[in-house]
């Protein structure tokens, strides 16, 4: 690849291999610890104890509701990912995805119409496409835009707000932010951005030692990256014709679901905890100004972690009290990045990249929202 690297490669690699793995006991222990502290801190009187159990009940209900609501979408995304793994080869990706960075980022931002997936389903699909050699900008733009740029979400936004600045602003700004962030990542190298296991199976020119091992079902191809790409991703169980390819696709879907499910569940835990502990009115009471309100609504979207298919209706509940610019903060930033999806990102990208993926859209959306409030002011 002819891309130049903004990061010292050796450093990124060292840090990556050490600390930027996937959350394991650390995160799990942290979650449990935080939960215990929060619950224990309010156990002074019998009445407080009663409310603590009630709150725990609320926490469990919200956690399970987030999980039950998101699971079908994640499963659908995983199945699409499994089908891509088995039926799509690298040639197809290279043929249909434009080379030019501008076009590539634009294609990524519009890809949501081809794969109508929401913020949970988009992650396994993107990860799989990266494994098939999808260029970085395309995947990033797809990841950020797809939760909004798809028929279902556009329709639900229309249902809530009708034709108007909120609808087209949401679509246009989502495209813009996704396109811009995708373009920025054009400067980076995949191996500095993606987890090694995401890259496995990437094109041979990108091949690095990181993928000397592949996952359970895929590992007898590590050494033959030079042969015809159409065989590059064959399943290791191919040698037996007894197993139809559809079963391979499904088993890989299962792997993906469990892989991503961990992040979904961790994210749902966190979001449910925040919802149980942080009063909504606190956030909303903080700020109403043209600038502060944008950040408050972005923070609200991040904390609530509701699915992009319904967040328009939630935003409507705020529309009376909040500026249009801050609604963009909620409707554009929320689907791109929230607690749930940033944890899902950890399954695809190195941790530093996830930070960029949170901060870059945040900065861009904040600029858009504040600009709208100050200059347009509708």
């Amino acid at each position, binding site marked *: 690849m002819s891309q130049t690297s903004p990061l010292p490669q050796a450093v990124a690699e060292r840090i990556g291999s050490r600390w930027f793995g996937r959350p394991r006991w650390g995160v799990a222990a942290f979650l449990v610890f935080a939960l215990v502290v929060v619950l224990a801190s309010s156990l002074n009187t019998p009445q407080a104890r009663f409310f603590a159990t009630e709150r725990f009940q609320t926490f469990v209900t919200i956690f399970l509701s987030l999980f039950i609501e998101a699971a*079908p979408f994640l499963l659908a995304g995983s199945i699409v990912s499994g089908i891509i793994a088995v039926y799509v080869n690298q040639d197809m990706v290279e043929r249909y995805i434009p080379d030019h960075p501008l076009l590539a980022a634009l294609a990524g931002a519009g890809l949501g119409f081809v794969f109508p997936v929401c913020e949970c389903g988009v992650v396994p699909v993107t990860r799989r496409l990266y494994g098939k050699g999808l260029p970085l900008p395309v995947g990033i733009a797809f990841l950020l835009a797809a939760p909004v740029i798809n028929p279902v979400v556009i329709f639900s936004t229309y*249902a809530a707000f009708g034709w108007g600045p909120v609808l087209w602003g949401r679509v246009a700004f989502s495209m813009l932010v996704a396109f811009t962030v995708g373009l920025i990542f054009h400067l980076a190298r995949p191996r500095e951005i993606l987890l090694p*296991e995401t890259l496995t199976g990437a094109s041979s020119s990108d091949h690095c030692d990181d993928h000397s091992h592949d996952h359970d*079902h895929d*590992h007898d191809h590590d050494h033959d990256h030079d042969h015809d790409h159409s065989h590059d991703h064959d399943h290791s169980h191919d040698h037996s014709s007894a197993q139809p390819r559809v079963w391979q696709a499904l*088993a890989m879907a299962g792997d993906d*679901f469990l892989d991503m499910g961990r992040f979904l569940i961790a994210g749902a835990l966190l979001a449910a905890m925040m919802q149980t502990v942080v009063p909504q009115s606190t956030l909303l009471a903080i700020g109403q100004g043209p600038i502060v309100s944008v950040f408050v609504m972005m923070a609200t979207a991040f904390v609530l972690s509701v699915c992009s298919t319904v967040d328009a209706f939630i935003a409507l*509940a705020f529309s009376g009290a909040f500026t249009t610019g801050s609604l963009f903060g909620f409707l554009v930033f929320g689907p791109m990045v929230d607690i749930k999806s940033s944890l899902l990102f950890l399954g695809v990208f190195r941790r530093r990249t996830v930070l960029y993926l949170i901060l870059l859209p945040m900065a861009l959306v904040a600029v858009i929202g504040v600009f709208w409030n100050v200059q347009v002011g509708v």
Partner: protein
Amino acid sequence: MASRLLGLPKVQVALKGMLLLGLGIFLLTRFTTGTLNFYISSRFDWLTVAAIMGLLVVAGSYRYLLREDEEGSAGPDDSVAEGAGGGGPAAGEDDHDHSHRLGWSGLVLISLPIVLGILVPPRPLGVAALQNREISAGALDSVLPAAVRSSRVQESSERTILDWVLAFHEGERPAETDTADVIGFVYLDDASEEGQFTLTRFVVGCCAADAMAVGLPVNLAAGLPSEEELAEGQWVRVVGQFTTPAGSALPVLMAEQLETVPEPNQPYLYP
């Protein structure tokens, strides 16, 4: 030792299959016991049904892998290399190479919905959830989805709390003859006056995470149990007519009948 056991390819395949099966069965129990709508809007029930079927099918696909492992036993560079990598003493390092390897933390996290679902009896959101929510109970100036308006029931006795709240929000004022017959749970608002409570329900667009509370202030007539006798969170059916007290912009429901009712199967209202 334990991580070695977990690293065995066959154990991995079996565990993954079992976890997916377990999640599918967990969702199925929520569906069959009718508690699914404690969590999500009934509009999305079909998604859960699809997910149950999907999970069962995907879980079933692992049986193929298991059988393959037994029959083929072996691409020499296959399971051997895997066994050495996954189960070796340096398993901690290897975790990063095997993206799909299920570790202990993954196992715990994935089974958490099942474990919590079994340990904590299913209950819909209640009074505790009101404590830190934007409460539009009583205060009707919260805006609710526009899509709601079209679906509103006009027959006064069939209107839900949400229908009334929306109607009032739009400026409609109840006629003398309008009789409300509504079900909700009791919420004792700190701000409410004596002999008054807020009849509350949650409105859920998608899942309980996006629940909003709506409520009607209810005045208890003489002869009815006072609000102190009503347990907070108790589901009640209230029949009565609205009056708009002087100095107040919002109508208050004057309860003529009040009876406790069991929690409805569909605890939430849908816009």
